[in-house]
């Protein structure tokens, strides 16, 4: 995976990530499946277009780092790590079970390719600042990608990290914030007004792009621009996403942090995903 390749097509990668996530959701019977579906396009582009890594050597020194700050999205990252060949596919059926390396909340000590222990939200960008500083000290070309959620925008620590990344001009840091407009108690914009996000991030010294996070072409273009942008600034991709994306009946379900999926619906969801597949 050191050399970038577009085969299979990114749309197929995104489809496979969604499929893996649904299969894991079925094992546990519940979980953050709507989030996994909303972020699959971003993960497909990150893992199969933008990032450099070696599936057989997840600790390869020159790899791009990927931090999952929103640890409850682990189901989505496992789906991508399986698709990338970093986690063996047969472990999928252990998701969230006793002794599994794929716990419901992502932790570095459990899973190959998981770079941080999340679960407590608002930690990822601070680690990313340190990693970016460290990589620069080592004269490494590697980048630090950090995925976090709109709910995390409420945490003061996130803004401390955003401010310091601007201060240190961390052009090797690429943040992606999933604006799915949902957090635990309701729609994020109602829980705590965080807009205008682009202007705020720009004011903190970041190069900011806001995109439809479920439009693959837009996601590809945003990652490309984030990598090639000439200014010495950290880069943020603000990705507006749709919870449940790719499974129409989940897209339409009442929006919730923890959506209900009945036992019989998992197979229906896989079928709906398949039916909507663009070939």
């Amino acid at each position, binding site marked *: 995976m050191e050399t970038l390749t577009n085969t299979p097509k990114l749309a197929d990668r995104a489809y496979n990530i969604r499929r893996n996530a649904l299969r894991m959701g079925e094992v546990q019977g519940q*979980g953050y499946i709507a989030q996994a579906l909303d972020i699959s396009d971003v993960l497909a582009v990150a893992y199969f277009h933008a990032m450099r890594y070696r599936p057989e050597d997840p600790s390869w020194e020159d790899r791009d780092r990927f931090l999952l700050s929103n640890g409850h999205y682990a189901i989505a990252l496992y789906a991508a790590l399986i698709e990338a060949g970093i986690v063996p596919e047969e472990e999928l059926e252990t998701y969230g079970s006793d*002794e599994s390396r794929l716990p419901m*909340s992502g*932790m570095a000590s*459990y899973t190959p390719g998981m770079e941080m222990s999340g679960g*407590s939200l608002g930690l990822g960008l601070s680690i990313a600042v340190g990693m970016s500083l460290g990589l620069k000290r080592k004269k490494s070309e590697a980048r630090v990608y950090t995925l976090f959620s709109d709910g995390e925008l409420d945490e003061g620590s996130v803004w401390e990290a955003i401010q310091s990344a601007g201060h240190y001009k961390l052009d090797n840091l690429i943040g992606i914030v999933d604006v799915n407009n949902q957090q*635990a108690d309701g729609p994020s914009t109602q829980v705590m007004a965080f807009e205008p996000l682009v202007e705020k991030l720009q004011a903190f010294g970041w190069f900011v792009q806001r995109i439809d996070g479920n439009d693959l072409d837009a996601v590809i273009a945003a990652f490309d621009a984030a990598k090639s942008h000439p200014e010495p600034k950290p880069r943020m991709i603000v990705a507006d996403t749709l919870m449940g994306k790719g499974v129409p009946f989940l897209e339409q379900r009442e929006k919730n942090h923890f959506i209900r999926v009945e036992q019989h619906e998992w197979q229906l969801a896989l079928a709906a995903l398949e039916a909507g597949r663009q070939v």
Partner: protein
Amino acid sequence: MKTVRSAPQPGKARLTTSAMIASIAAEGQKTKPAPFGRALVELARSRPDVVGMTADLGKYTDLHIFAKEFPDRYYQMGMAEQLLFGAASGLAAEGFMPFATTYAVFASRRAYDFIHQTIAEEDRNVKIVCALPGLTSGYGPSHQAAEDLALFRAMPNMTVIDPCDAHEIEQLVPAIAAHQGPVYMRLLRGQVPVVLDEYDYKFELGKAKLIRDGKDVLIISSGIMTMRALEALQALKDDRVDAAVLHVPTIKPLDAETILREAGKSGRLVVVAENHTTIGGLGEAVAALLMRSGVHPPFRQIALPDEFLDAGALPTLHDRYGISTAEVARQIKQWL
């Protein structure tokens, strides 16, 4: 280089992690829904100074019930625990009595300095009410507040409470409101077991209560471990072990008089059982009290180990770390 765990053996059926909103009630156990939320609504009817606050966990701490009843006395602070407690201090300074909720891990770890400086040091009348105490989540260390009692015990001015069941939670909400000053209260939420009603129990702030008497062992316990201890009595009796249970819901200030009186009765093994790490909780508090007072019964601790606990299904974890009913009974028998 980072080391990770090895892959599990394939093909073995295993329990799955229950959702973080899962109830700790056993199948078929008598429960009550949302005792904290309901009791707070009751209290707020006669106490116009009560306000509710949360950091994006209203639904997960039963505070949504209060929010629905008193929308204009409810403050959603977003997922910002430091802000939550700083703002609670400010509201208290202006004469209000905030009940501020989040998970135990986030109050104790993320917001500790804010609580220490703006609430405890100023002796502000804030009630800190926290779900997922001790080991009541299968999500791993990020959600397992194994050390919350130790941290809040170490804070001057703080009253620390670890209730057992819905019956107790209902009673302690008005009781902590009547107490002027900061309180840290462990919360059981959702469908909460009802246990102590059968023992004619009444909560009193600062008081330990003997729930059952017995001549071989004195179990001193708090929180859900009192429920476990009571459940273990039958298994102990089957082995002709006669156990007493002393419930200590107020961890600080400790009811020294009752604990010394009971632990001082000769011929009994003293076992302190808590849903908390061995470090700094009820066990060490009782041990230090006994040592200082020159009372020296044989002493054992049932508590979580000093390590980062696993993720997994709660029944599996409670067995693994010795706080399930079966493990409580097994350990006590082994020590006799």
